[in-house]
């Protein structure tokens, strides 16, 4: 991998000359002037991508990392080969065609064909996510792969509720049941094709969330592990990752052979027409300004459904910065190094108030609605956790989110979210209490199971996991303010609504005093802060 000279992340202290800052606000955005002295964290600019992706892929497959043979040496004519790939939740926004998954799987299939491997099955690693639609699969894999595999039933989507298609591998030293996809477990080789958009992805997490059952998932997705994941982006300080790593090692020790392929992307998130979204405001060209004014006005005037459709049609020009393959843990370490090279930036000191504008898309609402629970998890589960060492915001501090937070759900994708919002959050926002009182009934509800298996619904327990994802932030923060959100929906989340940014600061001052330090996370593009 070669790297061009690229500007690292920037921490700007706002003064009188600082132009207003771009804040995402769901299916729109606006410019907001921040108080003098506020810090604005701009992510690093995109690093150099691989010069030749095909070469990069070949190089990774032929020169594996860690204790692994090159891929061609692992392929035998009479073997069972299962290629597993990350689902619709990655990357965000979806990348322009060809998707990196397609490029890698095509290369793997070429080698498999050369080796005379006939028994090949592709599996989308859904975990408890919704099934992908045909257009989504075609986008991720390309038409050639889709047409070759799907009509023959060889392109499958993991079904965590199909007991006939799950197999129990064993129990970890901490008593965690490990139950994974039977086809994968019975294969001579699993090739996992991963996209590492954030530091929490990849490694053993790929298999141990993407191909397991609820019975296994609940060991690492629960209030205790999420409360003790500080942060989710730092696997060495994450109870969730510790549990997953125990499971991953159990799988490896059981004799299941995994050839892990991990990729990293740069931060070139938006196409040229929306390029201003990832630029520093004082560097906007005339054309950026015109595009900002035009786009923000049009989006504001459009009904949310229409503006959502426009924004969800964006395909990101992400470019691949690295491909590494081989043994899971060795590969993942290289991946993290490459990801840090793009995203990591040092921030000195914590802040009293952390502000964040939440965009229209998150991992669980691709081609869908960002409902209030997903707003919470975007803010408190993801953006809050974009740190290693210590949170950007101090203990007892405040997070201010800008997002419309409409009382709005997609009943096709998120049916259990509606019930969770109405029936669970109306009773409690405490992750521990809701886990004890409500989780089981949602997890085993036959209707949700039916919709997960046969329709396009997230698993019944998924909204609980989203809320647990917020557990660390909920425990750490003194308050959460949502600017511009539906007041009832925001209150249901246990947060405080504010009608304007200044009102939000006023509300926050009740908690952090009248002279707080303020830091704004200018995100996306994604970044990772090392807070000292």
């Amino acid at each position, binding site marked *: 991998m070669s790297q061009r000279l690229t500007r690292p992340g920037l921490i700007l202290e706002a003064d009188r000359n600082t132009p207003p800052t771009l804040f995402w606000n769901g299916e729109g955005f606006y410019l907001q002037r921040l108080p003098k002295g506020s810090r604005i964290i701009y992510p690093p600019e995109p690093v150099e991508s691989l010069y030749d992706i095909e070469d990069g892929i070949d190089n990774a497959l032929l020169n594996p990392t860690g204790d692994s043979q090159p891929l061609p040496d692992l392929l035998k004519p009479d073997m069972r080969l299962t290629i597993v790939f990350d689902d619709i939740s990655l990357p965000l926004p979806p990348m322009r065609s060809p998707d990196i998954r397609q490029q890698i799987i095509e290369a793997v299939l070429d080698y498999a064909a050369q080796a005379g491997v006939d028994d090949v099955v592709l599996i989308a690693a859904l975990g408890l996510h919704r099934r992908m639609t045909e257009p989504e699969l075609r986008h991720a894999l390309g038409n050639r792969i889709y047409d070759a595999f799907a009509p023959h039933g060889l392109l499958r989507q993991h079904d965590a509720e199909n007991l006939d298609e799950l197999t129990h591998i064993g129990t970890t030293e901490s008593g965690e049941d490990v139950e994974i996809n039977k086809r994968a477990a019975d294969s001579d080789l699993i090739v996992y094709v991963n996209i590492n958009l954030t530091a929490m992805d990849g490694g053993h997490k790929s298999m141990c969330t993407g191909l397991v059952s609820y019975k296994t998932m609940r060991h690492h997705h629960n209030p205790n592990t999420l409360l003790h994941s500080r942060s989710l982006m730092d696997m060495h300080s994450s109870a969730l990752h510790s549990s997953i790593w125990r499971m991953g090692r159990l799988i490896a020790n059981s004799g299941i052979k995994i050839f892990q392929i991990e990729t990293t992307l740069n931060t070139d998130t938006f196409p040229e027409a929306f390029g201003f979204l990832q630029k520093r405001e004082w560097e906007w060209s005339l054309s950026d300004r015109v595009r900002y004014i035009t786009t923000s006005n049009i989006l504001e005037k459009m009904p949310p459904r229409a503006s959502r459709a426009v924004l969800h049609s964006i395909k990101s020009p992400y470019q691949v910065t690295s491909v590494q393959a081989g043994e899971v843990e060795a590969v993942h370490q290289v991946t993290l190094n490459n990801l840090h090279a793009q995203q990591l930036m040092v921030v000195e000191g914590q802040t009293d108030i952390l502000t964040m504008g939440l965009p229209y898309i998150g991992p669980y609402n691709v081609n869908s609605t960002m409902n209030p629970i997903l707003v919470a998890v975007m803010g408190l589960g993801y953006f809050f956790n974009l740190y290693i060492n210590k949170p950007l915001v101090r203990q007892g501090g405040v997070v201010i989110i800008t997002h419309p937070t409409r009382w709005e759900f997609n009943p096709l994708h998120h049916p259990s979210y*509606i*019930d969770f919002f*109405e*029936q669970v959050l109306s009773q409690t926002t405490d992750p521990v209490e809701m886990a004890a009182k409500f989780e089981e009934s949602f997890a085993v*509800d036959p*209707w949700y199971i*039916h919709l997960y298996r046969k329709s396009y619904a997230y698993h019944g327990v998924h909204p609980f996991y989203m809320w647990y994802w917020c557990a660390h932030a909920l425990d750490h923060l003194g308050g959460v303010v949502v600017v511009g959100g539906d007041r009832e929906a925001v209150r249901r989340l246990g947060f405080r609504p504010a009608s304007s940014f200044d009102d939000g600061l006023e509300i926050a001052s009740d908690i952090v005093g009248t002279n707080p330090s303020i830091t704004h996370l200018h995100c996306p593009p994604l970044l990772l802060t090392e807070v000292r």
Partner: protein
Amino acid sequence: MKALLFERNIPRLAASRIGSSLFGADFLGSTQGAKVGPLRLVETEPPRLPDSVPNSPSDSLPDSDWYRIRPRLSGICGSDLAALAGKSSRWFEPLVSFPFVPGHEVVGELINPPAGKSRVVIKAVLGCATRGINPPCDSCQKGYINQCERVAFGHIKPGMMVGYCADTSGGWSEELIAHKTQLHYIKDDVTDEAAVMIEPTACALHAVESANINDGDKVLILGSGTLGLCVLASLQYLRFSGGINPEIIAVAKYPEQYQLAQELGAQYIISPSETGRVVRKRTASLMAGTHLTTGVDIVIDCVGSRDSLRNALDVVSPKGKIVLVGMPGETRIDMAPLWYKEITLQGAYTYSPTTFDTATKVVVTNHLERLVSAKYRLENFEDAIAHAAKAGQRGAIKVVFDMRKKPRNIQREQPS
């Protein structure tokens, strides 16, 4: 005496019906609604039974079969509001005599009380005993006076109950007449506010008893206004006294209703829009289209609207039961689910005389006097009706007329 008289004034009734159709609850909810409606405040002679009635009330006959009663508090019921809005079913027309004084939820004092007894709650239903029909009809003989077969006959004018009979007057007045069989004596330690809740609670209790609820049944209560909350209180009483422990889901529209429903023992309190989803979740039902494959065992519909009945039909289980307590009217509804799921649809009208003893215990043990949210003098009836029509939105449950205090006699100075 002063009384609020409901007249069969066709233009006013038509105006009310049109206004209510156009503006819904907002019509009666504004004081103008009551002004244009069929109700008016009159100064009139005390009520008098026909001469044909033997032992009719007289100040000189304290041990008469009939008693004169001075109302102290009298509630405004949903059926009263429906009548004022011109929305009552015309089916009732032969069972009512005009003009009448509304008000069937009454606590009052006897003008010539027997020794040691003075305050009573009226058992408003006018059965054979009150009509001088002897032998009584089959229903009355069996104790089901709410099903009296002679409510339009006998020596008093037609009327299912006090408050719809031209001869007896009603609670929204300074005086009414009641038969001795209609008196439910109240102990001194029961406040007027508690006592005025006994009649609606008796209706609710009757509905709960009719529902035949078993231990562990899932029961959905549609509506958490007065009737819904009284149903909850009745279930709470039965839970403690009868050991029946159903799972109760209550549908509440407003925060005050939500709070009271919770205090009265509902395990799940939900908004109307959540009903289908919560029932599906609580009963682990699947859905075919929008249809639940199972549902709650019993629905107690305390609203009586088309939407509530439709809702009930959607969420009750096959072979389940819907008990209609809220007064329904003419409606158009798809009865296919009733047929297909073999649902029992059962009415629950008022009560039997014996219900009042238990209803009193329900009121006292659950402190239902707290449901009385506002009291108005008869003179302020427009405000009272407006308040009652929008009770939920205004954070109220039961609005009553208060006849205990005489109005201030304020005379305006005439300009010279």
